[in-house]
């Protein structure tokens, strides 16, 4: 279901009642299939609505991408989900357990890795894991298991002070995996990693649901990154959810575009720009919008052929990825009120 939020504000009280009713209903059901459910979540910091009426519904088994630019409210939302911040309004349920009423039961199924990996620097990686393991009352063998999973066994007995950022991220991941939690929450897990590290992290996260059966909730400000790993996505902007749905629905939202570098831009624009097709010049390249994702390859080939036939040399031809900014322009542009606080 595609859901760009529309602006119609309901009267506050009705809204609350409706939410309450739905919430109760879900709690009563048999097997719980919603890993994270939030209703009307709000958090204000000194006049700033960091999180402003967020309704999330994260299906079990999903890799749920939580996408938004810097300051959108991702970290604040995650801290609300973990009970580290108290919302001004709204409710949270993890696997049907109400966080406010039953924090401990709700958090039993959660493993989390924060934005910047925080460990006890004067202790070894193993000692750091041992601390969490003891608090979770898990078997000692868990430590070696998670160390092996994140390929950190060889430096386990080194002080964290001597770890690289990549190792710290992996240790954070290992800590989140202790006890095989049903829900893994990662706040910008690729923050500060190099391209290889980013790819490794992404590939690792992608395998998690199949490997462990976990639901993964992962935040990022990289559209491409989320596109490559998520099955579902919510886009947050200024504390509000501007899109929520399956990844394919988000892809369907933005038509694919072809980036063309050629010898004669003016002629190429005249040739390709007929009809409804949008062609614009940007940084010495032509951006040609394609109608749908299906058949994009065939269309690219045909455009190449037409240009060649017209005697225009093509030296660059690529499907241009959408940036988060462009996606926002599209999502927010359609609903200008979302741009305001």
């Amino acid at each position, binding site marked *: 279901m595609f859901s760009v939020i529309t602006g119609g504000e309901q009267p506050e009280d009705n809204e609350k009642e409706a939410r309450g009713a739905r919430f109760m209903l879900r709690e009563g059901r048999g097997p719980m299939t919603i890993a994270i459910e939030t209703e009307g979540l709000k958090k204000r910091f000194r006049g700033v609505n960091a999180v402003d009426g967020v309704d999330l519904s994260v299906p079990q088994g999903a890799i749920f991408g939580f996408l938004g630019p810097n300051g959108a409210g991702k970290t604040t939302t995650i801290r609300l989900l973990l009970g580290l911040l108290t919302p001004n309004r709204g409710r949270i349920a993890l696997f049907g357990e109400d966080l406010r009423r039953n924090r401990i039961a709700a*958090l039993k199924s959660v493993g989390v890795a*924060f934005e910047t990996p*925080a460990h*006890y620097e*004067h202790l070894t990686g193993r000692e750091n894991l041992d601390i969490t393991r*003891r*608090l*979770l009352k898990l078997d000692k063998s868990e430590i070696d298991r998670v160390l092996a999973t994140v390929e950190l066994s060889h430096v386990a007995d080194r002080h964290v002070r001597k770890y690289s950022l990549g190792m710290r991220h992996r240790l954070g991941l290992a*800590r989140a995996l202790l006890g095989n939690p049903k829900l893994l929450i990662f706040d910008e897990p690729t923050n500060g990693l190099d391209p290889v590290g980013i790819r490794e992290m992404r590939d690792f996260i992608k395998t998690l649901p199949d490997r462990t059966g976990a639901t993964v909730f992962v935040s990022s400000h990289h559209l491409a990154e989320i596109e490559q790993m998520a099955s579902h996505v919510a886009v947050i902007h200024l504390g509000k959810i501007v899109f929520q749905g399956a990844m394919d629905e988000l892809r369907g939202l933005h038509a694919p575009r072809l980036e063309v570098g050629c010898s004669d831009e003016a002629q190429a624009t005249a040739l390709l720009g007929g009809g409804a097709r949008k062609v614009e010049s940007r940084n010495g390249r032509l951006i040609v919008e394609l109608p749908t994702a299906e058949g994009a390859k065939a269309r690219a080939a045909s455009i190449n052929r037409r240009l060649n036939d017209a005697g225009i040399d093509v030296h660059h031809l690529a499907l241009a990825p959408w940036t988060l900014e462009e996606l926002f322009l599209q999502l927010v542009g359609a609903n200008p009120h979302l741009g305001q606080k």
Partner: protein
Amino acid sequence: MLASIRVELIKLKRSKIMLVALAGPALVALLFFSLQASGANLRAWPLYLFAGMTAWATFMLPLTATIIATLLAQLEHGPKTWAHLLALPVPKWRVFAAKAIVALGLIAAMSLLTGALLAFGGWLAGALNPENKLLDPAPFAALAETMVDPDDQAFGDLDVMLMVKEWRRVVAERLAYVYLSSFLLIAVQLWAAFRFRNFLIPMALGVGGGFFAIFAQASAYGVYFPWLMPFNTLGFMPENVEKALAYGLVGGIGMGLLMFVDMSRMQIK
């Protein structure tokens, strides 16, 4: 709860806290050993030990409690591990309670160490030079009874005969009082240390509290001043001993409970 305490002890590995816990008592003992060894003869064991305990109660205990509380909190503030710790399926208050128990345990151990090292220093001074040997007044109790004027101010208002006859029990008891009455100041220091990421705030509070304590002794309200309670239990003003003990101990437990409630609600940003 045991797991939470165990975890706090693991974190103390290779940290400076243990050093502070050893250095505080050692410095007090060293000071009085030097005094005694250099001829400033305090003559009798109870006088010597009470002098040492006064330095411990008024200065070293509040100062080391401040440092220990601050370091225990900085263990989490520094690497920003509060978020991880408080997002675990463990009651939040337990995190703070475990740290408080570790702080109380350390300070209990330091109290005992102070007593032991003071005694060792006193013995060593006498062993090095027989002229500086400290006397056990107990054998002279009968003699003292005939000589000591009950209103003599040499011991302040301490019960002189008790000090002469049962000084070992009195010293042990007062060392325990000093410790128990420090609960309030420990709770206040822990609260400040947990609450503020900036370690200067709890440090300033501790140093400021200790500084005012020196002058608050003369004040009628001094008995309500947390940093003065350990000193007050030593009994230089006997009417204040029980008050200081009650306020320090009961107040400390109450303040600790308030702290757990407040800290459990803290917004971890």
